[in-house]
């Protein structure tokens, strides 16, 4: 079927299988490989992207169902040479990753965690970031990064 997706402010027209997920469209059709496949069954959060500012799992969202929404991926946060988003900078500052594979999903989820108002305490950050698995186990540093970025993003 033919669909239109709005990703990082750009419209993409493409024909897809009705079964194709948003994640596979991003990765295999549009070259936006920043969103990662870690389980393809909604368990790990590595494919987290924003749809109209809400976090969704790219592997659990059919591409056809993503039409009409403004989709933001990790590539949409900072262009080449442009300043990093405060959340990206905070992950750098705190070494809030090791292998980096879950990191795009963590950052997208963390941005939504802040804008949803779920980053008021460290406990709340831990709870609302628990859908994003990090096998390297950078969790304490991810919490510190979210707490730092929250202030830079203008949230208390």
């Amino acid at each position: 079927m033919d669909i239109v997706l709005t990703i990082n402010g750009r419209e993409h027209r493409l024909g897809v299988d009705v079964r194709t997920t948003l994640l596979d469209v991003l990765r295999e059709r549009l070259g936006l490989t920043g969103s990662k496949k870690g389980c393809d069954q909604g368990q790990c959060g590595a494919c987290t992207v924003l749809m109209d500012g809400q976090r969704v799992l790219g592997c659990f969202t059919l591409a056809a169902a993503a039409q009409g929404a403004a989709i933001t991926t990790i590539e949409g946060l900072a262009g080449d040479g442009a300043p990093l988003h405060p959340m990206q900078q905070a992950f750098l500052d705190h070494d809030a990753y090791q292998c980096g594979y879950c990191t795009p999903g963590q950052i997208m989820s963390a941005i939504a965690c802040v804008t949803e108002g779920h980053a008021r305490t460290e406990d709340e950050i831990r709870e609302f970031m628990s859908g994003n698995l990090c096998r390297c186990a950078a969790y304490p540093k991810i919490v510190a990064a979210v707490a730092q970025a929250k202030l830079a993003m203008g949230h208390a």
Partner: protein
Amino acid sequence: MPDDASWTTIGAAVPRIEGRAKVTGQALYASDEPVANPAFAFLVLSTAARGRIRSFDLRAAQAVAGVLDILTYENVGHEADPPAPHGAGEETTTMQTSRIWHDGQIIGVVVAETYEAAREAAYAVGVEYDAEAPSATFDSPGVQEEVREPGEHKDFAVGDADAAFDAAAVRIDARFGTPTQHHNPIELFTTTCTWHDGSLTVYEPSQFVHGLRGSLAKQLRMDPKRIRVVARHVGGAFGSKGIPSARTAWIAVAARRLNRPVKLVATRGQGYTIATYRAETRHHIRLAAGRDGRLLALRHEGWEVTSRPSDYNVSGTETTARMYACPNILTRVNIVHTDRNTPGFMRAPPDVPYMFPLEVAMDELAEALGMDPVELRRVNDTQTDPATGQAFSSRSLMRCFDQAAARFGWADRTPQPRSMRDGDWLLGWGCAAAAYPANIGAGAARVLLGPDGQATVQIAAHDIGNGSHTIIAQTAAERLGLRLEAVTVQLGDSDLPPAGLAAGSSHASGICHAVAHACEDVRARIAVAATTSNAGPFAGRDPATLILAQGRLRGEDGTAEPLHDALARVTGGALEAYAENIPKGLPPDSVGKLYSGQMAISRGTQREDLTTYAFGAQFVEVRVHARTGETRVSRAVGAFAAGRIINPRTAHSQLMGGMIWGISSALHEATEIDTRAARYVNDNIAEYLIPVNADVREVEAIIVPEQDAEVNPLGMKGIGEIGVVGMNAAISNAVYHATGRRIRDLPIRIEDLL
């Protein structure tokens, strides 16, 4: 001129140089590599665990729109051999024949225009089996048990452990078990193969790109020069991506048949049987001591599961026999053959399962003696390897215990079980020792220094989250006297000089030494040119006294000239140096072995002059709910002495991550097996429990300064494994302290505490 600290790179806690690429989504992992017009592969796995394939029915699969090819043993079995075994014995086969060795074995590959079509067709492949009843694990009918003969791993018999045990005043005699675990890196097992004029390029997450290249050359009967393996970033590995898996050759064959790139992204569940895992183990430990706490006897016997044809084992008795001064030591390891996939190495492979029983038994012994567990370790500390009688290059075990104990507040512990409480929560404090051999890999590196003062370092190292990019740049910047930003690192590519296997805490020291050697070659050539020149400030001096520092060539008296001028005496262009490093304990052909894809690691347990180990001490607080048995690790403090640390920032993440792996190992992780089918049941990362953010509280890793001039020239010991080693026992000991229940089978679950 005074040293400017801003130039210091070795030992500086600098951010990862690839960090920006990782936080912007630009870092290319293997399945992110762009290839033109790929076809997509989906694996067909066996649903029988033992027997033979009687027949395939491919009609429904072939009828799926978009299907391009279906590979089975019937049409491609002769086109690839299995990878070589990664231990003694033989390896299971896949599509070479109709033989089924284990559930989830690769028996077919479907290739289609789209991922969706390949998946649909793979599930439509009909298979008839001549199946036999499989043997799943310990105690299953049909398993074959045998004593592991000495080979790669040794046993120790010092004194007479049985007689000393029988005669001793205080004795502990206990049996333990550890479960099957799967690495579950978040990056899946992927393979993309492309052919061009008879040459093969493979994009695959790997901990040993030269190893995979060498294996594929043998499997596909090709010249290794015609194969290139690329893994620029690896999304976690933990051992699972170190051994060539059977899938790669079949994807290469599929791509050759279609003359088109083929891309495989295996599913999370398939990863449980197409790669390796940590096998379940059992242990029988006997410890005996005098009333003064001094050990008199240690007897440690282990049992490990492996596949039917393989003799793979980890033999962690090589560490437990070395932990404490003891005049009578006996170790023995048995392997149990089952109808399962072959296990392999997973973070601290020998020490996670084997240190658990030893360090719990030490806690039991301390209680039997009425001694503090830390003091029992102090009484039995030694600077001499008890198994061999040779010295440790350095051993800071008690400094680790003392620093961690002070930070933790251990002095406030009341020793009686169930004596510390916070409302409905029973508090338990426990500790354990950690140790891991200071292994080091052979390696080679190439350095290019240009007239613009920019350097490029090329080495086929692997960044699996261990910080390789950054520590390579730090080493080169320090030795070339450059700013960190002036160094570009190229790694993860078998076209580069080999760096060996990124595993067993051998990689950081291996690659830093190789890079330092190449940089020394650069320095020496620049220095010789400067001292043999008739003109210039260094004419006639001893070249060995000149160093590269802060963008200059500098003499001992402070005389200096800009690097650009010094380099111009050697070349008007770029200076290139290639160097190899063969660590003590390895034969001279070790780098040659790396080029051909074999491992070359000098092990801390196998040197003939010294025993080299890193040591640590781990303390945890658990909270066990008195009514529900819910168990949480509320605090963990670890202190580790591992020689020179190149980057305390990335090292801290390694140690902290290792400690959280330990929380996971003790309380969360276990692969459940349906023993009737010899099948993994919880083959996904929702039901295979690993910690989420909310499971982790305070985790503190302390790096204890340690200088070791004997272990290797840079004084480095690896830190990738040691963080996880003591946690199983520390947590079990803390649970005992909280509840009075001694749990000797992992993981510790609510049902154990009700």
